[in-house]
């Protein structure tokens, strides 16, 4: 394999904002729900899950009342 032929891509890959994702959201204020999403499962007063899109995740990350947003990560069976 000639690795010298690898080139820096001119544009970093960008996922489509419309890509559906499931997320875990942690908010700073109890029971706060950003208007862009609806809660699927309320875990506690400041933590919930939701179905949304990558575009909305970007909005949530700039929401000062949102502490953290985690796109659901694949987990494998420990076998």
């Amino acid at each position, binding site marked *: *394999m*000639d*690795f*010298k*032929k*690898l*080139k*820096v*891509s001119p*544009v*970093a*890959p960008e996922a489509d904002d419309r890509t*559906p*994702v*499931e*997320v*875990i*959201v*942690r908010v700073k204020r109890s029971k706060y729900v950003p208007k862009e999403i609806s809660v*699927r*499962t309320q*875990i*506690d007063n400041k*933590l919930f*899950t939701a179905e949304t899109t990558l575009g909305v995740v970007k909005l949530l*990350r700039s929401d000062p009342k949102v*502490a*953290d*947003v*985690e796109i*659901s*990560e*694949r*987990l*494998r*069976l*420990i*076998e």
Partner: protein
Amino acid sequence: MSSGMPFFEETDVTVLSNPARIEELLERVRTLLEQRATTDGNKSERQMVGLSVDSFVGTNITNMDPHLQFAVARKRIGMTTSVTASTNADEIAVLARVVNAQDWEDRSEVRIPTIVGVALGGEVIVTGRIPLSRIEAVRSDANVLSLKAARELKPALHASTQETGASASLLPASHLANGGQGVVVGIVDFGADFAHLNFRKPDKSTRLLAVWHQNGASVPGGPVAFGREYSAAEINAALNTSTPYQSLGYGPASDLPGRPPGTHGTHVMDIAAGNGMGSTVAGMAPQAELVFVEVSTNDIPWSGPNAVGKSFGDSARLLEACKYIFDKAGHKPCVINISLGTNGGPHDGSTLVELGLDSLLSQPNRAIVIAASNSFDDGIHAAGTVPQGGHIDLHWEVSAQNISADEFELWYAGADRFDLEIIAPDGTSLGRIQPGETLPLSNANQELVVFCSNRLDDSSNHDNMLGVFIQQKTASWNPAGTWTLRIHGMVVTNGEFHAWIERDDQSQSRFAPPHDNSHTLGSISCGQLTIAVGSYDAHKAARSISWFSSAGPTRDGRMKPEVSAPGHEVEAAHSRTLTGRTPKSGTSMAAPAVAGICALVLAESQNRGLTLTIQQLRAILEQSARRSPPAGNAWDSRYGHGRISASAAVQAVIDLATTGGGGPGPTATTTAKPTKRAAKSAVRSATATSKKSSAKKKKAT
């Protein structure tokens, strides 16, 4: 002669000269006999036909097997041998080496003759059942070169319950654990065999309160946000049909060629709480109620070669699964077992899924138990300290069979600034990125094949993370070789880092040796309140740690795994057999043992009017755990605080209820040595709660 399925695909008559091969073949015999036992209802045949190499290699045929001598002696003095499912009264299962298989079959006293295989010189290994009165006659037959009694094999789950002291007979005499009665055991896994008799009541109805199949077809207006919930009533209705899985629309997958037999979820649920009604061997909490969640993911195809035999969940759905189980349990004490994880992540308990699991444990009488992971020997962790102005090289070996993508991530302190330089296997430096930058690399076909990022201020913990993704091998891209990741210290106040290579079951890449196998816990096993469990081999007198059992501590230095339990060759329920068992190994088998023991402790506590917080429960488990191994009194990176002890943990609750006291709080969890004294002090912390609870009750009344 009944030969059943062929035992040998090959016809190599020298095969039995290889001890390892003999063991392999004998294991196949065991499996076959077990399958037939299940089919025929001969459920104890598995125990009767315990074959061993030692019983066959180097046999002195002039001496009768002592087990046979004993059987004959019993017969001679008039003692009868009990009938078993596989043998009639005064009959014994035997293993023989014979000259001619047909002659063996032709002997009238040999029942159920079966060919096992061909030995050196064309001799044949056979099994059968013969009357005790005919042992000497059969043995003296010139055709019979060796005759051995089949030895009883102790089922491994039995070994687990005995070794941990969870058997009712080994619990303190005054215990009120009642097999976990009144406690809900929740399992988040794959493949619940609700039809297996180990999960049914004596009237054959289900012990399951519900099953949530997250990937099932949703019912509009149903009780779950997605997927399909099956109630106990629906499960019972299905059990009353001849095709329960089809009737319910859910069931464990059939065994697949090349995959371990039996579904994981059925096996795990049996270890935690099977009642042995089918397999004859009970799990840890056989009277507990059950809830099962078949977890799923939303982002991978569920068909095609890459999905066959694979099981995936995802973090959001896992969190929802646990919330669902606790909601189902309501006010009942509840413990959940999880056997999911990956290698990556910050390993400091800061992921939202770990924070969510911790949050669910804010109510008392709850616990979540997680397998530590099986990655100890995979070479997936590296650590070090980058000097200011200097660099450290990490060597990452990508295999030639690279059929799936490889991922690397490195975590370091938020105040530091590292540059990442990536050097290909041929020595070509492909680039160097500074904090906040990314580096996408494409091949001549414009395919993105390598992607690097240098990300600052992770929102979960404000640490920094370097990530590298290498695309899998294609017709025009072959990443095989040793990659060098050069970490440059640009601004260093701490310099320490930990790096992991993501799990890849198809073509695992690894760091070049020598390996640092510490910090190999799974990605979601690092929570503050969840209980991570390592595995040891309960069949060995030394109680050796399982070679695969991952090591702690967490990246932020906390002592996880908390405890260890038997997880090696654990024999538990085999799905789709009603009564069968199958062996499996892994921390996945150790965690449910601890989950089941948590159920016993919670039941004991409830029946004595106590309420346990998760901190108190953790303290009880840790400080009642046994040593030797592990050596000394300090926390061990793989055994944790020690080997779980059901009897000592239950005794701690009894002591708490009967003697009371007021000692140190649950902060003792991570600092106290696991001595008896410490265990007592740990449980005193629960006393305060108990007293407060009692006081409240008195006020209320």
